[in-house]
């Protein structure tokens, strides 16, 4: 490849990336501007940053939403891993007779839209006093995340060369020790990426949160949407809330981007 051609491709790619990322950058910068600076067009990249918006946001009860988001995301991810990883392991290593059917069934549950279950879920939660509770919300997220765990982890387990398992068995590692000492370390990157993706999906989930939470268990996406309708004119304050809401999933996403492709493509492709 000629040097000049390589330089042109680099410049084009960087331009595309900057244009693509620009809306997020503007929001991020707005969070550190005054309201007047935020609506000034075109957005200036040079300004005197202020933490005023963040002080406002942190003093107006963002913490309860943040806490709810954290608990629902982390809780549901841990439980989804606890029940999804063993299933994925069994499907990949033991290759049971109807393993393909079972695996495919897990995938088909992702085809069912959230609205397909919302009416009975709402009624059940109402009758069981689970509306507006974190464990109710987490429960729904477990149902949402477990198929993703099975789906992704199965392809990571399948990648373990059979000879590794066989030779460890010859060395006398069995059952729990085999899984804990030999197999889990081998799939650690995959396990890590799967956990991060589940965290991101639950953290960003909006439909269930909107329908079954109210004040006690409301998560960050709910805060953002209610804020938008009530105080949509306060751009810099909105931007500060938005930045707090997207920072964790964006960082997790950046970390997990490589494994994401591999795990999500159902083993049909290698990323």
């Amino acid at each position, binding site marked *: 490849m000629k040097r000049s051609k390589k330089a042109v491709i680099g410049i084009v790619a960087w331009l595309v990336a900057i244009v693509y990322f620009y809306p997020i950058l503007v929001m991020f910068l707005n969070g550190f501007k005054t309201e007047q600076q935020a609506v000034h067009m075109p957005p200036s990249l040079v300004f005197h940053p202020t933490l005023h918006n963040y002080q406002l946001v942190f003093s107006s009860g963002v913490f309860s939403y943040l806490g709810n988001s954290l608990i629902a995301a982390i809780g549901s991810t841990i439980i989804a891993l606890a*029940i999804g990883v063993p299933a994925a392991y069994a499907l990949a290593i033991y290759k*049971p007779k109807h393993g393909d059917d079972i695996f495919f069934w897990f995938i088909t549950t992702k085809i069912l839209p959230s609205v397909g*279950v919302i009416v009975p879920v709402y009624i059940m939660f109402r009758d069981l006093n689970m509306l507006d509770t974190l464990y109710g919300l987490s429960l729904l997220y477990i*149902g949402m995340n477990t198929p993703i765990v099975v789906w992704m982890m199965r392809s990571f387990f399948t990648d373990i060369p059979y000879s590794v398992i066989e030779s460890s068995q010859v060395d006398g590692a069995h059952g729990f020790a085999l899984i804990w000492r030999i197999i889990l370390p081998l799939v650690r990157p995959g396990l890590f990426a799967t956990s991060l993706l589940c965290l991101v999906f639950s953290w960003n989930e909006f*439909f269930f949160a909107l329908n079954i939470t109210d004040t006690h268990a409301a998560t960050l996406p709910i805060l953002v949407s209610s804020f938008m309708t009530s105080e949509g004119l306060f751009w810099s304050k909105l931007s500060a809330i938005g930045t707090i809401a997207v920072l964790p999933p964006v960082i997790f996403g950046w970390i997990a981007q490589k494994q994401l492709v591999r795990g999500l493509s159902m083993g*049909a*492709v290698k990323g």
Partner: protein
Amino acid sequence: MENIQSRMTTGRGRRVTTRASHQHPKQRYMRLILPGMIVVGVLTQIPFLGTLYLSFFRWNLLRPSQGIKFIGFSNFARELSSMQFYHATLNTVVITLFTLVICLGIGMLLALLLNQPFWGRGIVRSLIITPFFVMSTVSGIIWKDIIFDPSFGLFAWAMRHIGMHPVAVAQSDPMILIILVLSWRWIPFFMLILLAGLQSFPEELHESGQLDGANGIQRFFSLVIPHLMRYMEVAIFLGLIFILQTFGTIYVTTQGGPGLASTNLSYLVYRTQVQNYHYGLASSVSVLFVVLTVVGLSFLFKNIRNRFGETLR
């Protein structure tokens, strides 16, 4: 009992040497699989059966005097003969198709670009995939306010700059706004999967193509595209199941309006249940939506099972 041996064999046809255990091996692995199946079944399949059941009842919370009454297929008849259902179905199809085509096209171009070597490729890739991890309510703020606000938005500023009158995009072209926001979010995902496909393309194929005298474009269409089919199918399948049920983006940008102009099926279910308290009717819309989804997917992926099944062996 007759084929425990064969069941315990792995894909490579060798037998696992397990210690003699008192347990039936089949029970051993089912013990690992069942908890996941039960939890997912209870949380997804059973509520759906509940939706199906409710769809045959008239149950309107605003009219408690009517009670809960079995009315057979009346809810379905009512929805299927109503304009709003057709509107919502049409909008769902339009949003999904346009978004998928845009994501495939631009995702492919970006994947080709990022497949070239240049300085800072990892950073560029990270910047481009960022929107995929941004929650729908925040993308709503960014696009509805910061970019398309009729008085303070970037777009309005640009329009005024070239001497045109700014328009309120959320009112005048709500569907375009939604497709734009969704595309912005899903293009990176398509790019990621297609990039993985390009990077797994065997180099010797390129060389043999060159020897046969095929130019770059010919090589792309005759060699690269067939190789990428697999990857495209995966991206389309995954993108489809999420884009079909778009809700948050619509909720924060247009509220399904003006009128029904940008109401899709997810939003229609939400409105019927939450704003009109018509539980039976909302359930019947859900059921129709699920049926349409499954029919649509089966139509697109006649052999999805075999497609993905091949790799399961």
